[in-house]
């Protein structure tokens, strides 16, 4: 893994998200509580809705277009819907957001 600093944890509002553009497409960084963050694809597999604009609740996000709910821990769609979004390693170090650059590199996409 190669961790890359993409911002400060307070750049993301609690129960909110921000976007990072990467070679594998837009990745959404979600903050579910004061200390917990997750990274996942921004794109809903249903109709391509921007998940970073969804409502974050518990450790899940709801797509703003048609209310599909995804677990941010596994990327799995919840309830009756069937689908999966890629998730990426993200950790917080001294309040900095560290994203695994390898996982979102062009090679990973290939």
């Amino acid at each position, binding site marked *: 893994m190669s961790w*890359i600093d*993409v*911002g400060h944890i307070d*750049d*993301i*509002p*609690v*129960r*909110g998200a*921000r*976007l*990072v*553009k*990467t*070679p594998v497409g*837009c990745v959404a*960084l979600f903050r*579910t*509580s*004061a*200390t*917990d963050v997750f990274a996942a694809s921004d794109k809903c597999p249903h*109709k*391509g*809705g*921007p998940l970073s*604009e*969804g*409502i*974050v*609740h*518990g*450790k*899940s996000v*709801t797509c*703003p*277009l048609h*209310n599909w*709910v995804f677990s941010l*821990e596994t990327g799995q769609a919840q309830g009756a819907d069937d689908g999966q979004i890629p998730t990426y390693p993200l950790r917080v170090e001294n309040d900095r*957001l560290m*994203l695994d*650059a390898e996982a*979102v*590199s*062009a090679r990973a996409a290939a």
Partner: protein
Amino acid sequence: MTQKLIVIGAGMATGRMLETLGEEAPDAFDITLFNGEPRGNYNRIMLSPVLAGDKTYQEIVTHDDDWYADQGITCRFGERIASIDTCAKTVTAENGDVLSYDKLVLGTGSNPFMIPLPGRDLDGVIAYRDLEDTERMMGLGADNKVVVIGGGLLGLEAAAGMAARGVDVTVVHIMGHLMERQLDEAAGYLLRRALIEKGITVKCGANSKEILGENGKVKALLLDDGTQLPCDLLVMAVGIRPNVALAQSAGLAVGRGIHVDDQMVTCDENILAVGECVEHNGALFGLVAPLYDQAKVAAQTLLGKPAAFVQKELSTKLKVTGCDLFSAGDFAEGEDREDIVFRDPARGVYKRLVIENNALIGAVFYGDTADSNWFFGLIRDKTDITDMRDTLIFGPNAQGATVDPLQAVAALPADAEICGCNGICKGQIVDAIAEGATTLGDVRAVTKASGSCGTCTGLVEQVLAVTLGDDFKIPAAASICGCSDLTHEDVRRLIKSQELKSQDAVWQELGWKTPNGCHVCRPAINYYLLADWPIEYQDDPQSRFVNERNHANIQKDGTYSVVPRMWGGITTANELRAIADAADKYNVPTVKVTGGQRIDLLGVRKEDLPAMWYDLNQAGMVSGHAYSKGLRTVKTCVGKDHCRFGTQDSTGLGIKLEKKLWGSWTPHKFKLGVSGCPRNCAEATCKDVGIICVDSGYEVSVAGAAGMDLRETELLAKVATEDEAIAVTTAYMQLYREHAKYLDRGYKWVAKVGLDWVKEQVVDDLDNRTALVERFELSQSIYRKDPWAEHAAQAEKYQPLADLTLEAAQ
């Protein structure tokens, strides 16, 4: 031969070390003890009870003069050490005395951290650290005001202690909830509530800007939102920093604290360090348990015996009367971690367990800490909890018992209280059922059980089920969502009656089953709170649907549409020019005229929104709120100024209405129309409020719709003047804001409550109409403002946080 031991600092850690030495080898050392404070060792953590008046200083003295004399320790209290010469193995006291040592122990403790605010040197700005600080606070009484900066353990104990003396105390805390290092949001909420009940004012999320003074003495604390908090004394309790100055100047290895190994030896083999001044494996120490462990290890090391200091799990309890809270271990959310949450709103109890790999790793309790030691044992011993997982939260007594809620209710004695509000026991409910009550409504009517706060509704239904057997089906009430069993109407009623003014209050008091709701309930709760408590509650963007968070309508491709407000549908050549310029500048693919007499710019990228809003603001235009569950548009016809049939100035009235109502939030979208004559060119009679002008005045009709359902409005009132038409419209809107279920359009709500009731409230009862308008205006003092102007100033939030596509091109 006896070795010379010099100890610097007579605190709790060195005190315990001296006790151990005295017990195990009283004659091993010739001991000299220096202390900066002019006294020996006292129990510093009991300063809070001293402050609160529960104890006296004499009661918290650990070692008095006799003890030191018995131990043969030479005390030099009130004297500091100026320097250490590690080569010569000597220390130099402040008065110039040079003393040699064989072994030296540093117990220099910590210094309170003082935020570098302007004015921190003023008289009356103190920390909360020693007896002098405590005595200063004890000198205050009912005529004094105090501000405490810091909502952690120490700050809250100081605040509670002074409040017990009648002092007017305000706690200012920078984080969103109190004691955020020990508590989660829910427990922080309960703690805050308890402190408020003690008369303490609590301000969370508050940034201090400057300490204001007069004649060199503190006068007030200024927050960065401009609030001034007057005070006679300002206590800073925001944390401590290890006191490493002496060790550092002696050339010892120092990080955040003085580096020590497992034997408590510093980088110099003859110098040890214990207590709050040390850093061990990257950790610092502020609680007493590890300090005592360190003290015992240091004593063994001095005596040449093997011993090693091991860091252990820690738990915290707050020493404030009436606030039972406990926290231990790690309770942050995380992957592979599960939460078990239990809330009992009636008793004010909150319990949360955090489980990882079938072991308990963290716990937060508020209100009931009776079993905390048992849980702490599970955390410390990393016990496998697989077999007791289902009943774990109920504590040690529940283990081995089956938990079926119906069986539990069946087992309750007849005098067990079911409804706490009305004091109704199980027996009274069973009697009511025996006399013919068969539904929840019957029981409520006969006994009042569950009729007040409603949180025992489920319990009453279970009593019905147990008593009636198969004859009773627990009704599947249409609850707000899976997070709660309460209906929207219940929740609205409870938010008002229990004065719930924050999301955390709703989650706790109404027994929410999830930590912070879901996409269904959270926007509804956010709306109910801001509608009922416009001043107290702050709108939460993270509880809003994307359109209301970004102040534009999201389209299916992720772009947005932008609609500037055109008051009453009137525009100017300059506004049209600015709209055209914006369309060109931001490559807007589609420009559409809407049904509400506005212009819609479709296909705008999120990144461009703030700049486009800025441009439109410069031309005098504000958000049209075309995206909101709030006031949308007031559609008008040209009225008597131009039209040969017009009876009144319908355009003017439309503009007045829109200027009064804009920016307000409603349960669903809210549209108005004003037509100048019964020909109704503004199509007013399919709006939420439609006004038809006639020769004799204005016909105000309500509850129309032209969407999924098509409804004609019904007449609410006929009034003679424009002012009355505006007042009736405003009062109707406020009544809807206060009572309707979230996402019920006006016509659905009126169908539920009945138009007659609405007429009583806003037409017949003039006092009530006035009160509704006043409450609407109070809310508008917060919400009648342009969100575009606000958001254009925070353009960076609309940009990606980082762009790795550029860096990755290697």
